């Protein structure tokens, strides 16, 4: 029993252990230098990531409340990877910060919550994971303790998330009322598309939609992204969103199958709204973080198109896209985070003439943005192609047309950034940035990932084989 427990919960235990190590470090009397601390933590995260690729467990625990398999492990690896990259990228920011261990403790707690959420097979377990992944995040948003905007962001985050989890819980309670079970397997058997269940499904979707910032549950996103420290913003937009999308895929595809028709229509509407609204808002943005917030909302719209496919291609395209999204978005956030940490500049106007002073960083940002826009040969192209491809498999081409046209709109604002960096003149450009090797490596990995993941078909084929 114990060995099984240790084996199956390997990923979660690794995180827990790191959290504890950090707690002890914090409690230990000797103050470590921030640089050393960061390097140490990063090594731990690398080990954590590497461990995920060996001895992949399959099985379940706690009377089916927790289950794991190759796919879930892969998803957790993605999240581990994203966390590692963010950690590397925020090196410049954190090395001057007083509360490094706390940052990681909170961060890893949320990661732990996500892992549980992914592995959950029960609404209670799911709820616990969800809250564990949300509440520390709100605290993280406030991590620039003396910034007005940071507090405001944190406040908006906690209020909105509390509200949304209230609604989600209300939905779960109704679902419980109508089916009498919290277990996913039994739930599937009990669902029968009656009005109460549809109502609770709507509430559930709203709860999920809040976390992935789908329209109209997205309004917190931009403000929180803008106010939070860049590291947290990128974590929010990539890891946290990715985790919940993983959950959505497994829950919607495996549990809500009896009400597939209903959720298809809902997701359809939400997807259209999300793409359009996300794009329209992104058009006007000046702050890079806020801009990426809206762009990520639009991206979610595209992901939801893939979700509507209700086929193996659909789920694999969503998971595959998240991998690419991690690369692309973190590439972009990497640059923004470095620039913001060193110069404090965050608006698009500051980025004018960026290419003159920082050609390499510009290319990293450009490649990431092109990938987000879905330009070949970058990975984003493949990601988006497969999402819409899967969506088209369902046969509803109106959605595909809307999505394809939205891709054009999204291209406009990505190109606006490109234009600012490459073409516009600026009398007071961002000076030459000398960042540490850690962020550089992180960005290198992202760019490498963007360049390779699409051309080499291995990743997608692997994911597809897992889902079959």
């Amino acid at each position, binding site marked *: 029993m114990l060995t099984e427990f240790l084996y199956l919960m390997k990923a979660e235990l690794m995180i827990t252990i790191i959290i504890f190590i950090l707690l002890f470090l914090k409690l230990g009397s000797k103050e470590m230098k921030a640089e050393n601390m960061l390097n140490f933590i990063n090594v731990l995260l690398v080990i954590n990531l590497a461990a995920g690729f060996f001895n992949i467990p399959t099985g379940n625990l706690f009377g089916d409340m927790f289950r794991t398999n190759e796919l879930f492990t892969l998803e957790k690896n993605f999240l581990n990877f994203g966390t590692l990259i963010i950690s590397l990228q925020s090196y410049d920011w954190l090395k001057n910060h007083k509360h490094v261990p706390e940052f990681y403790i909170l961060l890893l707690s949320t990661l732990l919550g996500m892992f549980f959420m992914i592995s959950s097979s029960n609404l209670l377990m799911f709820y616990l994971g969800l809250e564990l992944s949300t509440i520390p995040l709100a605290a993280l948003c406030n991590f620039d303790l003396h910034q007005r905007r940071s507090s405001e962001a944190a406040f908006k985050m906690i209020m*909105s998330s509390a509200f949304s989890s209230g*609604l989600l819980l209300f939905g779960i309670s109704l679902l419980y009322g109508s089916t009498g079970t919290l277990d996913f397997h039994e739930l599937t058997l009990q669902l029968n598309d009656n009005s109460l269940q549809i109502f609770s499904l709507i509430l559930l979707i*709203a709860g999920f939609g809040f976390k992935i910032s789908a329209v*109209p549950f997205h309004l*917190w996103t931009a403000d929180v992204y803008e106010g939070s420290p860049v590291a947290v913003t990128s974590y929010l937009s990539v890891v946290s969103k990715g985790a919940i999308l993983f959950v959505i895929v497994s829950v919607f595809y495996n549990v809500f199958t009896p009400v597939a028709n209903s959720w298809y229509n*809902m997701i359809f509407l939400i997807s259209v709204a999300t793409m359009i609204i996300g794009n*329209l808002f992104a058009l006007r943005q000046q702050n890079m973080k806020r801009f990426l917030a809206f762009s990520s909302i639009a991206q979610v719209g595209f992901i939801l198109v893939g979700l509507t496919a209700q086929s193996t291609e659909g789920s694999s395209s969503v998971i595959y896209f998240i991998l690419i999204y991690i690369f692309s978005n973190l590439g972009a956030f990497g640059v923004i985070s470095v620039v913001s940490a060193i110069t404090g500049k965050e608006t698009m106007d500051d980025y004018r003439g960026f290419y003159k002073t920082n050609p390499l960083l510009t290319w990293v940002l450009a490649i990431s943005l092109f990938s987000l826009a879905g330009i070949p040969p970058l990975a984003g192209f493949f990601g988006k192609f497969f999402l819409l491809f899967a969506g088209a498999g369902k046969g509803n081409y109106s959605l595909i047309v809307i999505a394809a046209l939205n891709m054009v709109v999204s291209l406009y604002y990505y190109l606006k950034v490109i234009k600012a960096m490459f073409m516009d003149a600026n009398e007071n450009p961002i000076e030459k940035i000398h960042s540490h090797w850690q962020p550089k490596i992180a960005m290198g990995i992202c760019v490498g990932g963007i360049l390779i993941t699409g051309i080499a078909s291995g990743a997608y084929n692997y994911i597809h084989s897992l889902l079959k």
Partner: protein
Amino acid sequence: MNYSSYIALIPLLPLASFILLGLFGRKYLKELSGIIGCTVLLISTVLSLYAAYNYFFIGGKVNGVYPTLTAVKYTWLQFLPSLAIDMGIILDPISVMMIVVVSFVSLMVHIYSLGYMKGEERFGTYYSFLSLFTFSMLGLVLASNIFQIYIFWELVGISSYLLIGFYYDRPSAVAASKKAFVVTRFADLGFLIGILILGFQAQTLDFNTLIQRLTDTQSPQLLAIASTSFLGVSLLTWALTLVFVGGAGKSAMFPLHIWLPDAMEGPTPVSALIHAATMVVAGVYLVARLFPVFHINGASLHVVTWVGAISAFLAAVIACTQTDIKRVLAYSTMSQIGYMMFSLGVSGWGGETGLGYTGSMFHLFTHAFFKSLLFLCAGAVIHIARSNEMKDMGGLRRFMPITHITFLIACLAIAGVPPFAGFFSKEEILFAAWQNNQVIYVIGLVTSGITAFYMFRLYFSIFWNKEKELYDFHGEGTFSMKLPLIILGIGTALVGFIPFSNFISADRKGLPSELHLTFSIVPVTFAIIGIFIAYSLYFKQSDRAQKLSDTLGGLYRSTYRKFYIDEIYLFVTRKIIFNLVGRPAAWIDRNIVDGTMNGIAWTTGKISVLIKGVQSGRVQSYALYFFGGIVVLVLIFLYLWK
């Protein structure tokens, strides 16, 4: 007789010269280019003459007719199994006659230019263009395929363009070259469509097959094309008329003639070659080439007749009032080509009725001599007088005797005074008209008189009239300029005695050559009257001419302004095409089509601004929208959907 060994060299040699001079003429072969050009053309001319000798005398008639030989032929571009552009060389009486004319006149002009163009900065380029033109013109007359003729048709057009615009820094030359090309291009549009109709109806583009299929009354192609009609006119008429439009454009027939007078902006030898002797008769040649088909379609032949007659008369009238000597010659060219055209129009098929065809070709042949001679003389005159205007000339006979004599010969020829070349050909034409259509005959007759008048007006104004002194006179010209005048002068005097109708006739059988002396009395009288009037008005300096023009008043003015045809064209192009088509098109494109595209972008941006209030920054309203979203979903899925 095997021609293929050398016949292709006739056009290809000038081509080679064009390429050589075009690539290296500007820098490396500057002085040599004239020699190269002349040499090459000399070979071509000799070959042409040899070919003509071979064709008419060695090969001769086969079964009583001159045969149509295809000396060279290879497929250039295959469209459909039955439709292909072939590059070939066709030999029949008219093409053989034409290569002789073209290469001979071209040789003369080449030689003349050695002196005339000496010292030009772009001497090499000039010769390369001349070679290009000669190549194209030879290609045109030898074409065995209707599309091939179109190809060379365009090529002569462009050579003409390049040569008219040779003095490219003169805006007037640039404008004239553009006008020439565009007007003929417009006509070529008709030609092209005509070709499309003919080619597809006959299921071939090859001249031989085409003519055969469209003249054989049993052939299904002819039945189809004659029975199909569009806007009440049979397709055959459409096709032939359109082809004729192409010919009319090149040959400066009314109303497409406006480019020809302006084309005189080019160097004078060029005018002699292109705009008098060779290119402008391409239209006549084209109609003659398709004459068997025209012959069976009376309607289109009527068009040819009337356009020719009107052009002949109109141009002659205008020529009387022009003061620029080259323009006078240009209008006279137009008038003479009008002769050739209506002569074809009134022609029948065989025997006496087919005299029009023979006459037309004969006139083409003689016209080439006397008109190029006139132009070359005019060139010499302009060289001396440094002006194109008659009023700057007078009494030049003392300074340039050779020019004077040759010019006189040419004037007599064009006026139709026996025994010069023009008399014979004109006589045949008028006789044909008399036989076929008396109205045309009268027009021709009057025109002939007017022709004599204005030519002698020109002659007297240049060489007699007032006695001008020339201060910086350096002699009449180089030998290279005089030689062509002499040769052409002799030619003009003698070529009329060639028994032309033996060789060239519509039915290819040949006609006995005979003079209708009694018939000739009337035309010759008209010519002499014309000459006499000119003599009385212009031989001595006087104000009689001025008085006469004052008396005529408005008639004179409108004639002087060429009946305002240029102005009408200008109005149509500038005002209507530019302002009513071009400008609106550009405007629509910028503002409506592009405006729509920009409008979409603008609207998107505007919407984006309009809805920004949703993101109010207040967390409570966020929650409200959140809740609102749920309400909407509930409404849709629990009430509307079910």
